[in-house]
């Protein structure tokens, strides 16, 4: 199983600013996923991040708003850019395993 940590665990930000969320995995993984969970909602996939290539974004998400870095096989960052109150959500990273997906503890973002 994979152990995943995220930083920060929560933050309160002003609109118009940007926040970078870090995701660290205790083992090397090729693929990492970033999800958004809006208040009271389910999880929605933002993008898939493979090491050594550009992230693949899902419909409704764009690189300018959610740039992703994947510098090595154990680490990834997601930046929420030019934030608005609508970006207030929990952001989770996850990694696949042959039998399941493992999730980080999430980052709770509040935009004022």
């Amino acid at each position: 199983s994979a152990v995943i940590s995220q930083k920060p665990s929560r933050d309160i930000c002003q609109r118009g600013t940007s926040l970078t969320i870090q995701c660290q995995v205790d083992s090397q993984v090729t693929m990492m996923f970033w999800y958004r969970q809006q208040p009271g909602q389910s999880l929605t996939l933002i993008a898939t991040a493979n090491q050594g290539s550009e992230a693949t974004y899902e419909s409704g998400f764009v690189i300018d708003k959610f740039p992703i870095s994947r510098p090595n096989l154990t680490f990834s960052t997601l930046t929420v850019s030019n934030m608005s109150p609508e970006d207030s959500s929990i952001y989770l990273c996850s990694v696949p395993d042959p039998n399941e997906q493992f999730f980080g503890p999430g980052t709770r973002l509040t935009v004022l």
Partner: protein
Amino acid sequence: AQTVTQSQPEMSVQEAETVTLSCTYDTSESDYYLFWYKQPPSRQMILVIRQEAYKQQNATENRFSVNFQKAAKSFSLKISDSQLGDAAMYFCAPPGLSAPLNNAGNMLTFGGGTRLMVKP
């Protein structure tokens, strides 16, 4: 497109009783995995149970079991002897697009969730 429907936004069960959470989905795949995840207030996503679509036998994990009806594309979760610690959001998750059997770790498509409350 992949769709997942959890028709019960909220469910309530008395402690020690049994409750069933429903999930229906749509997929064009013939071989895939299905998952139920639990999200307590700590917001950590925890795998409850996994079902391989090619297996006819329903998966069981202690007090948790599934009723998998492949033709009907139905995947319900039964919790027996409910405990206070079972109170959480439960998400049904079949794999997203392009999910071959040997790669259960493909991206998941989550249902809207069911909030389970357990009454003492």
